[in-house]
């Protein structure tokens, strides 16, 4: 399968400061890729290079097989970009703003009208289509920005911090919107963010970048496994009395990766939710269960882990 986004040793240096350092990235079509990292890690620069808006110092960036530096027009035709501080022509209406985008993409007026109506509908702005953008809230502008890229029906969409400056409820709506659109249209989405909890709700793959280098990249569940010596779930149980026979018994359960004792707690790392099996093992061994807690590894744990290492 052709890669939607690919970079090979992509490097960008500004006045002796390396912003992006030999970045290798491959994102398959249809992925929702969370591009994570603290501010100034090089996320935006990478996106700009992918779009052909900045020239890399060395290395290659490709979008659907097109070289971003050599064929920027082709790349821009199939990719949509929502910059971090997205702006519109404030004295024009939402519809006029989108019309401008449609014309710049060379759409016929008829097709443009259709797509504008449809896009505004998808993002829920049909009612205010003929209002001037200056009346819009930040959240509405973000949604209009999504509508703006839908006009050209891109194969790849780059969203730079799409949730910054929106209230929590708006963030959820925004992410749901992005996920729905990506699923329905088979669009590859690259979502850059430093807000982990938000991104992990909708991304199926993430890459964490720090100081211009990719620290870790992969599918979400895969990442958890690699980072924590095994399991994706962590079950904590507290027993009235812990016997080694019981520990052995739990270790034998299919899917349990490791069992650790810390004081009166047993910490079990496992691949799936094994609470019923563990409970039965305890009862069978005559143990008394006081409490049992389960948590799945949040991306945040992964993120924190990698960042303490960097």
């Amino acid at each position, binding site marked *: 399968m052709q890669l939607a986004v690919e970079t090979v040793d992509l490097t960008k240096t500004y006045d002796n400061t390396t912003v992006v350092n030999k970045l290798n990235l491959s994102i398959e079509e249809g992925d929702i890729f969370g591009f994570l990292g603290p501010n100034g890690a090089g996320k935006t620069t990478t996106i700009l290079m992918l*779009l052909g808006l900045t020239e890399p110092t060395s290395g290659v960036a490709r979008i659907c097989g097109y070289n971003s530096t050599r064929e920027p027009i082709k790349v821009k035709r199939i990719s949509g970009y929502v910059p971090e501080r997205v702006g519109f022509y404030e004295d024009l209406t939402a519809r006029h703003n989108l019309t401008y985008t449609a014309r710049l993409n060379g759409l016929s007026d008829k097709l443009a009208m259709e797509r504008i109506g449809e896009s505004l509908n998808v993002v829920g702005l049909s009612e205010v289509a003929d209002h001037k953008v200056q009346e819009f809230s930040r959240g509405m502008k973000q949604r209009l920005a999504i509508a703006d890229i839908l006009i050209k029906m891109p194969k790849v969409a780059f969203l730079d911090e799409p949730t910054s400056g929106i209230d929590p409820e708006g963030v959820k709506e925004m992410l749901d919107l992005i996920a729905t659109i990506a699923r329905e249209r088979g669009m590859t989405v690259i979502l850059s963010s430093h807000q982990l909890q938000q991104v992990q709700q909708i991304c199926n793959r993430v890459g964490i970048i720090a100081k211009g280098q990719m620290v870790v990249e992969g599918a979400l569940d895969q990442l958890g496994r690699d980072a924590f010596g095994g399991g994706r779930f962590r079950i904590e149980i507290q027993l009235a009395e812990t016997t080694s026979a019981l520990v052995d018994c739990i270790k034998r359960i299919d899917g349990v990766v490791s069992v650790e004792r810390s004081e009166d707690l047993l910490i079990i790392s496992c691949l799936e939710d094994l609470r019923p099996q563990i409970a039965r093992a305890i009862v069978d061994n005559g143990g008394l269960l006081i409490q049992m807690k389960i948590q799945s590894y949040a991306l945040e744990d992964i993120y924190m882990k990698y960042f303490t290492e960097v």
Partner: protein
Amino acid sequence: MTGLITVFWKELSDNFTSWRFMILFALVLLAGVSAIYVAAENIREAVTEASKSPFAATETIRFVFLKLYTTSGQVIPFSFLTFIVFFVPIVGIALGFDAINSEKNSGTLSKLLSQPIYRDAVINGKFLAGVVTLSIMLASIVMLVAGIGLIRIGVPPSSEETLRLMAFLGIGIVYGAFGWV
């Protein structure tokens, strides 16, 4: 090419609906009309005086109509031409100085550049729109002044005078375009 034309039309309509343009137009119009008013008042005197001079007599009488644009009076010591020389570059600068900057500040520049158009298309489209705006402004003022002048002095321009006027317009536009750049 689509990019250039699209940017051009967008900028042209922006120019014509902006407050900046309205104010500039009003200013230039006011200055032009007052200069011409004074010139028309003084033109008879100017012609008589010029015909007394033994050297340039024939010249001046031949281009009476164009005298409208070059004569100044005591009340306003500037001719229409002087106004144009001052104002046209100012208009050019005013239309062009923040063409790209304003897009950058409002956050629309990166969105614009991520569309499938060449970067030149953005600059050239904006430049062309500026030049066309300036041309329309200058041409309409010169024509308006010609109309007022016709009524005031009652001398129609000869074909040569018309051609000279056109040439003046062309040079004025090029001059103003440098202001944009």
